[in-house]
């Protein structure tokens, strides 16, 4: 199964943590990536720029609106993610626990919804016939 691991942490953490500590965390991330890419568990992942760079887009009644933010009202913000391939939730939890961010923030493990191929091909057909 595929799982998305969403890493939430206090984004001010990076600004207020001394450099040697940050370097250690970065090297932990590199080690995590190397190990679990090699094992085939990490399919991909990225760190995100802070929420100050975020833009929210909505379309209502055909009209698009763009707003700045969202700005965090909660203590922890989405800071990065990994896409995992794991046998089951137990394995996904074990790997998520190894993400360095789990020590300072928290990791949300979400199963990817498997959409049956028959549904996909049906919609493909309806697109083609439209």
């Amino acid at each position: 199964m595929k799982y998305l691991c969403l890493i939430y942490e206090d984004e001010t953490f990076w600004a207020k943590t001394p450099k040697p500590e940050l370097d250690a965390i970065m090297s932990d991330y590199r080690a995590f990536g190397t190990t679990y890419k090699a094992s085939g568990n990490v399919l991909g992942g990225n760190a995100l720029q802070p929420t100050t760079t975020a833009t929210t887009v909505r379309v209502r009644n055909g009209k698009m609106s763009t707003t700045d933010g969202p700005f965090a009202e909660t203590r922890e913000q989405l800071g990065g993610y990994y896409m995992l391939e794991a046998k089951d939730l137990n394995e996904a939890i074990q790997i998520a626990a190894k993400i360095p961010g789990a020590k300072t923030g928290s990791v949300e493990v979400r199963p990817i919804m498997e959409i049956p191929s028959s549904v996909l091909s049906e919609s493909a057909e309806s697109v083609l016939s439209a």
Partner: protein
Amino acid sequence: MPDPEVDDASTQARDAVERVFRTESRRVLATLIRLLGDFDLAEEALHDAFAAAVQQWPEKGVPANPRAWLVSAGRFKAVDQARRRAKHDAGRDAIVDAFDLRNTPPPDVDDESLDDDWLRLIFTCCHPALSDDARIALTLREVCDLTTEQVARAFLSTPPTIAQRIVRAKAKIRDAGIPYAIPTRADMPERLDAVLHVLYLVFSEGYSATSGDAVVRSDLTREAIRLARLLLDLMPDEGEIRGLLALMLLHDSRRETRTTAQGDLVLLADQDRRLWDHGEIEEGLALVRQALRAPRYGSYAVQAAIAALHAQAPTAAETDWSEIAGLYDVLLEIDASPVVELNRAVAIAMRDGAAAGLTLVDAIVARGALENYHLAHAARADLLARLGQRDGAVSAYERALALASQAPERRFIERRIGELRGCGDAAVRDIGSVTPRTTDPFLQRGSRDRGR
């Protein structure tokens, strides 16, 4: 005219089905879930299998291995069902899978694999990815075979609420990929802790209902003890199962003496110790000794050791409070929580006097940690009464009353307020001194209840 012998045989066969249903249905279910990969399919197959047994056993006799027979029957019924549905609705993955079942070799149904399936079932129902409420409902429904109505009654909820909770939990098991598996050795401590936590919560709710009219709901305490026994039987090396079983037995031994015939609370110090269940106490004491001898013991074993000291004291006055205070220190190191601190403070009050205890309780309450915990205020009130401070005691009891929701506890507090108001100043101290206590020391519920 019916042949009396045949009639007799069919009655026997019917009795056998009933007996097997009572003792085996959950184990057969556990195996069917593994074979069919789905809780609901397995539940359906289980009912079909027993229906087949009711039909066939009177004619053909009770099979040599009823469990294995039921598993096979359930599996074939499920395949049959899938085939019939497939005629209407071809192309669904689940049904293709079910078809494949027919081509797989007959399932492994020796006793060992059935025991493993039972463990798979309980570890899945108690998976830490499910909420406490979901784990409790699922465990009582699937592992203990309580009906949805019974679970609802036990937790003062409604059957639709409980049913929905169970449906959601099953959906999460399926969609999040919670495996039907016994945890690996590395996972075991956390996973076993989650199972024991569920048993503990079920027992706590049975032993000291959070609200409602009765103090004890013995169906829940009985189920929790039964499951702990089964678990210990299958995992004899796990010390904390032993500790928890001991803890539950030692508290359960006081079951009959904790309330009056009218349903009013009787404090530990006032209970008639002759009426405690000495069989349970003996069993509990033996288990505590074994648990504490293990190289690594946990919070349940220490809590059980505290309960053991109460169980062994011939009278309340002869309780070894010094040892109990020491055990609370150990417990604080393993599993620190304000509730444990409160209990330690009460033990110290018994050892060193009410003033020493009050200083500690005041400090805990001042921190705001147990601001809304009625027993913290009741303990404060009791200590104030023992120091002769009537007004302070009354207002602390009033605070406790405002927070208490269990009817017998409320009546107890009201009675205490009445006694304090109705007596002269000199007698306040007496009222305090005849009640050296908090309520029963099974107070740790808050300490492990963080998730609720």
